[in-house]
């Protein structure tokens, strides 16, 4: 199988990140080792201040490490400039806690936006946006703006947007953190279904129960990985 020879989706070796908080250096990550293989569903669990958001920013190619090695989809992040990082982010599908949709755009336009950034032409992206919104169960909400959608529906749009450019993996930051528990269950089912279709997922959360829904849970504490268990 081809996948056997593919580089891991994410590979971190002794990853460190130090912030300057004013003049005081803060070691947010103090040597993280992590490998995410294709098809995995990994949850990163940890209290606030544990370094999980920092790890998310690094794995999302939003930020560069201070030390250590991080490769995303086989690319060493530390050698990239801002433009190359932006290109790398096109291969990552982001899903945020607060949905982060563009309020003035309809559901379809929001999904299309991701593809238009990649330079895909209008007709192709309209067709794909349609399909994706159908996949996430929003067939009849295509022309609604975020304000006209419930939290769960907005997060589905966000998931559709994240899937738009066929990413190597989805990176989720508390994807159900801002939705009521019943809807959260539905969104989680959707996420599991997507993972079942072969999409790699990395999900950051502080919710123990949610973390256990993943195939594998990494527990972070004080800037290092405290445990790494298959559920």
């Amino acid at each position: 199988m081809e996948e056997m020879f593919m580089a891991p989706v994410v590979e971190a070796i002794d990853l460190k990140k130090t912030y300057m908080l004013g003049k005081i250096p803060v070691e947010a990550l103090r040597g993280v080792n992590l490998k995410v293989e294709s098809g995995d569903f990994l949850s990163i669990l940890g209290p606030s201040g544990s370094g999980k958001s920092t790890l998310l920013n690094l794995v999302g190619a939003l930020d560069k490490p201070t030390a250590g090695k991080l490769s995303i989809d086989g690319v060493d992040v530390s050698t990239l400039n801002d433009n190359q990082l932006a290109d790398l982010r096109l291969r990552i599908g982001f899903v945020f806690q607060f949905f982060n949709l563009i309020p003035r755009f309809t559901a379809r336009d929001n999904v299309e936006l991701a593809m238009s950034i990649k330079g895909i032409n209008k007709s192709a992206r309209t067709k794909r946006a349609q399909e994706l919104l159908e996949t996430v169960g929003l067939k009849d909400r295509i022309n609604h703006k975020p304000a006209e959608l419930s939290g769960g529906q907005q997060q589905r749009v966000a998931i559709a947007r994240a899937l738009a450019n066929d990413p190597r993996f989805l990176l989720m930051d508390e994807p159900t953190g801002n939705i009521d528990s019943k809807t959260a269950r539905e969104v989680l089912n959707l996420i599991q279904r997507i993972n079942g279709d072969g999409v790699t997922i990395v999900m950051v959360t502080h919710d123990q129960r949610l973390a256990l829904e993943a195939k594998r849970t990494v527990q972070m504490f004080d800037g290092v990985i405290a445990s790494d268990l298959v559920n």
Partner: protein
Amino acid sequence: MRTSDVFSYSFSAIKLRKLRAALTTLGVVIGIAAIVALLSITQGLQTTITDQLERGLSADTLIVVPGSSALGGGEGGGFAGGGFGGSSSNAPLHINYTDEINNLSPDIITSFAVVQKAGYVQNGSGVIRIVTTITGVNFSQYANAYSTTFVAATGSIPLNPSNDEIVVGARISDPRFNGTLFVRANDEVNITWTNNTVIPFVNKTYTAHVAAVLDRIGGFGIGGPSDTGIYVPLTRAEEFFGTDEADVIIVKLRSSDAATINSTSKIITDYFGDQVSVISATAVQSLLTTIFSTISLFLGGIAAISLLVAGIGIMNIMIVSLIERTREIGILKAIGMKSRTVLYIFLTESVIIGLIGAVIGILSGWVLANGVALFLGRGGVIGSALTITPVLTVEVILGALGFGIGISVIFALYPAWRASKLKPVEALRYE
């Protein structure tokens, strides 16, 4: 991201804040409209005046005035009416100098003297009087030199006038150009001139017969005949004013080329020991061109300041917009947008504002210019009908477009650059 997608994204951002965008655009509109209106009026005025000049001052004519400083301060109306005269302490220009000037160069066909004084005319009823310039000339020579403007509308210009015959300008006959006639051909009028070289001043008056009313010349009547002048035979003027001094001697040349004009001018000034000034139509024209380009530059500069203010408005609004959209920029960057695309989006917004502002500005500037021209044409504030046809050249249109867009882009550079430099991690955290 494709250019068309950048454009439609920018457009959607502008549409979101319609009032704000409209107000920002209004700044550009006002600036561009001011520039376009001022430039097209100035250009129209220049065309009008150059036109007048070409009609009034033939290119093959030199004007000799007393005094060594050409184009000095003037008294009374019109450039020819001593308008170019220098200091009065200089040697006088005698009427009979024309004989000597005629013999100075083979390039000179003829020359004739003009005597001009300020005075007023009263019609038969004597109730109304009109201030005018009394010009003493040889009618046949004057008609020959100014064959297009010294032309009778009613009556006829006598080539050998009797002593009391005069010719009056169109505005003397019809001062308001509204059909209420002050005098007609064949009327009698009283001409009054105040001799202020003696103490006490003496008012001299004589009754003259209007032989002809001139065709309307329009504008300022530069050089030759004017709508507001009256013309009396030279000999009568000498006798009436008690003088043998000419205010102007007009020299007719064989050719209007620059070499002839320059060499003849020099011969005349040399002959009179630099105590006279020689003015040519071409010199006046080039002077006017210089004056008008200075005026254009000055007015354009003032208008440009308002555009500069508009530019600062754009910058202000873009910075507000950038702060408001910090999170949006974070999202765009997180899902893979490059910094330079963010820069393009912001610059495109300013280009759209600049373009719309410039187009509306050019149109409203043109409307404004025509409105002002109409106002001036009807008498306007200066009370004299001035026919200006605003001129809008392609250069002005393109310049206004370029300037409007240019200013918008320049002032958007900083906010756009700041937007593009936002760190995605921080931008996403922004509430």
